[in-house]
């Protein structure tokens, strides 16, 4: 649970797209090493909370990562400070190989390809899904939906994040693949990382998350 020294502290955060308010005055904390599911019906602002946190959409309010105030809209700052987001629809680089997609996860902490390839973070990311091993040289855009999701999660892990946030990780995936994805998320959390999962199906998320934050009509309840 969140203590005096949380991984993430959000105070009065609002996210709006033009005149449409998606998130209103959200306040919550996530402790170091905590695992939290952000749940609620579709279209109620769960993903907007993550997008606002990560700096991908404009937001107001205060966000702190390990007590450092985060500049609004600066996704690069967030990734360098240790928050990695695996977004909805994966956002891979379809013409690059799966291995290069994962390798680019290291960009948040190094510019050296040699250092990235030899790093423990890259090795951990590649080993997370052994079933990807035979597809590493394949263009990411030609992989199945499940494999693409695995690449997206592995890319996130290659950034060696302290906070791992993932948005709807099982959207459109078969049940067996969803099981593999959640196994991997559980492993990522067991390694001591803070885990935030946005999930429409709370049952699935609460198998690995210790608590939930419920969002309804853009408000944290």
């Amino acid at each position, binding site marked *: 649970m969140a203590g005096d020294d949380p991984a993430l502290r959000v105070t009065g955060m609002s996210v709006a797209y033009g005149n449409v308010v998606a998130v209103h005055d959200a306040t919550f904390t996530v402790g170091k090493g905590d695992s939290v599911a952000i749940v609620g019906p579709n279209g109620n602002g769960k993903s907007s909370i993550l997008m606002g946190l990560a700096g*991908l959409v404009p937001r107001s309010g205060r966000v702190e990562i390990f007590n450092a105030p985060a500049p609004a809209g600066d996704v*690069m700052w967030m*990734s*360098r400070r240790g928050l990695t987001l695996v977004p909805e629809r994966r956002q891979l*680089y379809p013409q690059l190989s799966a291995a*290069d997609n994962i390798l*680019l996860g290291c*960009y*948040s902490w190094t510019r050296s*390809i040699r250092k990235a390839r030899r790093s423990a973070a890259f090795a951990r990311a590649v080993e997370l899904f052994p079933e990807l091993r035979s597809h590493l040289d394949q263009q990411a855009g030609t992989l199945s939906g499940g494999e693409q999701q695995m690449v997206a999660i592995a890319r996130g892990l290659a950034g060696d994040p302290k906070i791992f946030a993932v948005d709807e990780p099982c959207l459109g995936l078969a049940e067996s693949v969803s099981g593999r994805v959640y196994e991997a998320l559980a492993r990522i959390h067991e390694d001591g990382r803070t885990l935030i999962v946005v999930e429409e199906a709370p049952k699935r998320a609460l198998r690995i998350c210790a608590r939930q934050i419920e969002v309804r009509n853009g408000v944290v309840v």
Partner: protein
Amino acid sequence: MKFGNLIIAGLVTGSIYAVFAVCIAVWYRVANILNLAVGDFAMIGALGVDNLVREKHWSLPAAIAATLAAAAGTAYVYDRIVLRLAQDGRRRQEGIVIIFFFTFALSFFIDGVAKVLFGTNVHAAPALWAGNSLTFLSGLHLERAGLLVLACAVASGLLFTAYIRYTLSGKAMEACGENHLGARIVGIDPRRYRRIIFVMTAVLAAVFGILESPITGYTFNSGATISVTGFIAAAYGGFQKPGRAVAAGIGIGILEALLGGYVSSQYGQTLLYAVLALVVLVRPGAMGLQPAAGG
């Protein structure tokens, strides 16, 4: 032998078109802007070096260094002031305005300044490798400047390929072209790559202007023709595939030389544009403005 010599001449011109086409295609992938001023940077290279050497009596290396610095500085300042406001500011420009307008305006601006600085006469930078043209296979001729152009085009292509394949920065640049949002998520700043590539392509264009000008000569408004031909070659690659842009650039160069040699030396370029227009009419899919990476 005439055919062989025309092919050689076409290869030299085509390699320049190929380089400019790649400059346009690569920057479009990353920035979603077509660089219609790329030829003007070549003109800066040619006329800048000529002016400093011939009129200011600078040494050739100093003139080249100063001119390349001027091209880089112009591109950097334009990105920091104009493109930053246009693409990153609160009043972000979208669509055709940002794709064409800002580099088109830059092209006119550079032409205007060049006209004042260098006049309207034809000039050329001093040849870097002076001497008679090289003859081989008893009848094929290649200008020394042409050989330098070919060598630099191949070297630039190899360096660019190595940059993409063997550096994380090169892969990050590819990622910007593939998916802006996906790139930002891992900490890549597409705006930084927009700036770096704009400056790099400006310098590369200036280098080719210096190398090529002893063959063709340049005036203050030569850049527009080069940009248009590079643009057409890049368009045949859908502005997304640098490999196809290279092939199209070389093809256009060879076609231009053959039309000039066998049909009409006076109307070679006019015929070239007519043939290219015909290709588009027959196969419209050959030329397509695909949207660059979104997100």
